[in-house]
């Protein structure tokens, strides 16, 4: 049995049925990481010893009936902006190159409680700012489908690790598309939950009102299983919400009969590549054949999404990132000899270009005299965007659209033109502003064989509904079963 060809749920079942030990599962992935991650660079940190020790502990726990989760014993990779006690958490930034948190994020505790085994920490764009993983201070992650291409970002390591079978499932974070876009570029599935569905406690903040942690995996069922492990109110996060218990069966039944799906016309307009557009239209056909009604409707608010997003996100980011001052932890410039110098040099030397750009943008929009013109206006746009979604959800059960206008660009193509990179977020950022959930899944390939992704956008706290729609699609198609040739 090839352990790495099993889905996370299949692997969990095999472990429970004692066909595979927890250690064998962990060893299999650790060996693959050792032999191939030199090519992809999905991981910033691999916790080999800790993972093996934990695997034995979990095996004992499963044998004693302590761990009963469907994912007990399953290995997992975690994005490097999620705090792990005693394990480096760098956010792929020089400024946190030596930061070892003294505490676990709530989601990490929940993985632990479910008996999952963490393999290591995954590469990302620095502080989750970027759409290609090229802003990482530890170097770019290569797309397993073609290593000349980026994996997307910011959860590039999390998506590529699943695509390259270097983890059966991973945790990423999504502030403006950071789970969905790399999932789409790497041909895997990923869920951005409703804002408040998963605790942010221990997620190093980029933009607090937009950040959400979510699962990535080979298919929607694995995402559903992992989501049910991490979701739920957390006393430590005041913005997390009490929600009804996640119904795994409802989330995986795949029944589309009588469902109403809307496609925002503005998601198929200017700038979209023909391959992507064709794949979305084909997906709409698939849903029609499954008994759903699909129609295109206007959503002109889309054009405000990018400016509103970058104002809100950068404003929050410049405040969230102020704590990295070279005083308490992380990088402190050896070239400074007074307080002001320590601040300026540590931050100038510790942050990368893209992070500095967003800090400056954020400081600008919050400055006295500009606040009303930018930040307040962005908050108004946020309200209008939320209303547009509520309006749409009065008519449709869910929305369908592309994740990104194109497939994964080549390494080096994006950074020279940040504005173009920002425009690539046009279909994803609105969902974070509205706070609604969205599921990304593969729906085709472009003429170079690079994966195309689509997203299903749901009503607040209706993850089960879009997961089920994704399962329905995956029952009818096999895009999610394709894997890149190992290089």
């Amino acid at each position, binding site marked *: 049995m090839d352990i790495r060809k099993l889905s996370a749920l299949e692997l969990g079942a095999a472990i429970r049925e004692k066909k595979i030990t927890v250690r064998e599962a962990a060893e299999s992935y650790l060996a693959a990481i050792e032999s191939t991650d030199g090519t992809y660079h999905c991981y910033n940190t691999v916790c080999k010893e800790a993972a093996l020790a934990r695997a034995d502990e979990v095996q004992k726990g499963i044998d004693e009936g302590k761990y009963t989760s469907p994912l007990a014993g399953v290995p997992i990779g975690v994005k490097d*902006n*999620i*705090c792990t006690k005693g394990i480096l*958490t760098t*956010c792929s930034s020089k400024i*946190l190159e030596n*930061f070892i*948190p*003294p*505490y676990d*994020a709530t989601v990490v505790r929940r993985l632990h409680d479910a008996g999952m085994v963490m393999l290591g920490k995954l590469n990302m764009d620095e502080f989750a700012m970027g759409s290609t993983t090229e802003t990482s201070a530890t170097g770019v992650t290569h797309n397993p489908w073609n290593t000349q291409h980026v994996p997307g970002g910011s959860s590039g390591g999390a998506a590529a690790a699943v695509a390259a079978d270097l983890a059966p499932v991973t945790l990423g974070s999504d502030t403006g598309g950071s789970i969905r876009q790399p999932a789409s570029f790497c041909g895997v599935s990923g869920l951005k939950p409703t804002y408040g569905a998963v605790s*942010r*406690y*221990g*997620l*190093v*903040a980029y*933009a*607090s*009102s937009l950040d959400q942690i979510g699962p990535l995996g080979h298919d929607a069922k694995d995402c559903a299983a992992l989501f049910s492990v991490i979701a739920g109110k957390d*006393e*430590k*996060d*005041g*913005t997390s919400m009490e929600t009804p218990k996640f119904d795994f069966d409802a989330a995986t039944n795949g029944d589309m009969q009588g469902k109403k799906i809307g496609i925002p016309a503005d998601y198929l307009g200017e700038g979209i590549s023909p391959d992507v557009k064709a794949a979305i239209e084909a997906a709409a056909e698939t849903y029609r054949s499954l008994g759903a009604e699909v129609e295109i409707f206007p959503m002109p608010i889309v054009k405000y999404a990018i400016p509103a997003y970058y104002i809100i996100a950068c*404003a*929050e980011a*410049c*405040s969230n990132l*102020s*704590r*990295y*001052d070279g*005083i*308490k*932890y992380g990088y402190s410039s050896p070239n400074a000899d007074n*307080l002001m110098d320590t*601040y300026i040099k540590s931050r100038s030397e510790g942050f990368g270009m893209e992070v500095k750009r967003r800090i400056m943008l954020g*400081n600008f929009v*919050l*400055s*006295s005299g500009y*606040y009303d013109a930018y*930040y307040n206006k962005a908050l108004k746009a946020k309200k209008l965007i939320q209303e547009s979604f509520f309006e749409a959800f009065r008519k449709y059960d869910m929305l369908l659209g592309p994740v990104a206008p194109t497939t994964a660009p080549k390494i080096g193509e994006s950074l020279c033109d940040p504005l173009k990179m920002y425009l690539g977020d046009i279909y994803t950022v609105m969902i974070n502003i509205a706070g609604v959930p969205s599921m990304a899944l593969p729906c085709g390939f472009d003429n170079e064989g690079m994966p195309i992704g689509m997203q299903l956008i749901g009503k607040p706290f209706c993850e089960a509904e879009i997961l089920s729609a994704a399962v329905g699609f995956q029952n009818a198609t096999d895009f999610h079963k394709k894997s890149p040739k190992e290089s």
Partner: protein
Amino acid sequence: MEWEIVMGLEVHTELATETKIFCGCSTAFGGEPNTHVCEICSGLPGTLPLLNQRVVEFAVRTGLATNCEITRKNKFDRKNYFYPDLPKAYQISQLYLPICRNGFVEITDADGNPKKIGIHEIHMEEDAGKLIHDEFDDCTLVDYNRCGVPLLEIVSEPDFRSADEVLQYLEKLRAILQFTGVSDCKMQEGSLRADVNLSVRPKGQKEFGTRTEMKNLNSFRAIGRAIAYEANRQIELLEDGEKIVQETRRWDDNKGYSYAMRSKEDAQDYKYFPEPDLPPIEISEETIESIRSAMPELPEQKKRRYIDELGLPEYDTSILTSDKAYVSLFEETLALCGSPKDVANWIMGEVMKLLNDTATLPENMELSPKDLAAVIQMVKSNKINRGTGKTVLEKVFTEGVDPEKYVADNNLAQITDLSALRPVIEEVIAANEKSVTEYKSGKTQAIGYLMGQAMRALKGKAPAQEVQKLLHEILD
């Protein structure tokens, strides 16, 4: 020209909650540096604030006690600035929607008329840490123990016209905060801090002058001195035809002057924006009502009750309610031994004298109601006389002795067996023939001398009335 001083106050008070505003760490004062600290209050990456609901309750109490409107939908905002005592590089505060607005505290103006000092707003925020400069190693160290201790900032309207009004207001405010249990208001521990905004203008002019803000005022005395200094400084400048610079000044109480810290041009842009990590806090009518009904008695209410129910003179009630420590001592002692007037007299007389003699602040007093009641009881039951009572109380106050044990150990109890008195008095009479003769010849004041001799022989432990009665019995 006659000048008028115009002042407004920003008072910061640390709340008496057990735990910090956004985490479970202790708020206890002191403690080894960085021992009351966790991942949240030290601002580690990934941590989130969780609001301590007691802080909201305390803020509402303060607002109700100062006649404020309570904001129903509250939000927090971030105030961004870099400083090593602020680990997140932003302070969570309230700018746009403070919890209380438009209240007042009543004082008495120079003519003896009641005057309302307006409260512009009260908002909740977190305290910062403390920087300690290590002269020996020439480095600065940070103690985050105080980081995240809840604060209320109480901002007055520019309604003050004299230092006396400022001090009256602060006394009232302190009593309110203490009585409502919101803060212990220990200025020397920094749990009550006041910044004074001051400007002067020719009397009769409507427009305000240019103001300065004065910081580092650590006692009521310092506030009074700093106001006098700053008003004079501004008046002298204006009379010399110069302009006042809008700036923040720091008061140095040892040297008795203030100096400019930063001017308006250097003022920081705090880039306030709504705190995204904390959801809005809705305060319902029911919550406000339940806080109102559970509100501890305020000084004015206590005064009224002491007059009406305990029959105390108004003068006594004013003194007793001027500090929460007096009230607690009074009420708890009263519960143990009754006699309100006796208890009031002991506190206003002996206790306050001892506080004064030992330069102890009322809130630091260690005298227990049980011990005070014991002394009062012993005097009342004639076990000791009043003079002995004072001596015993002083020993209790300064050395913490147990009053009953002290009286027993030192044999201070009055002689209760009256038959033991007669032989001693007879001896005194025998030894003072001259006085006896004088008395018998009609010089009745001679009995005073005999009385004194008898009391001395009895070491002051006999009831004077009984001694006098016996003297007369034997002599007449």
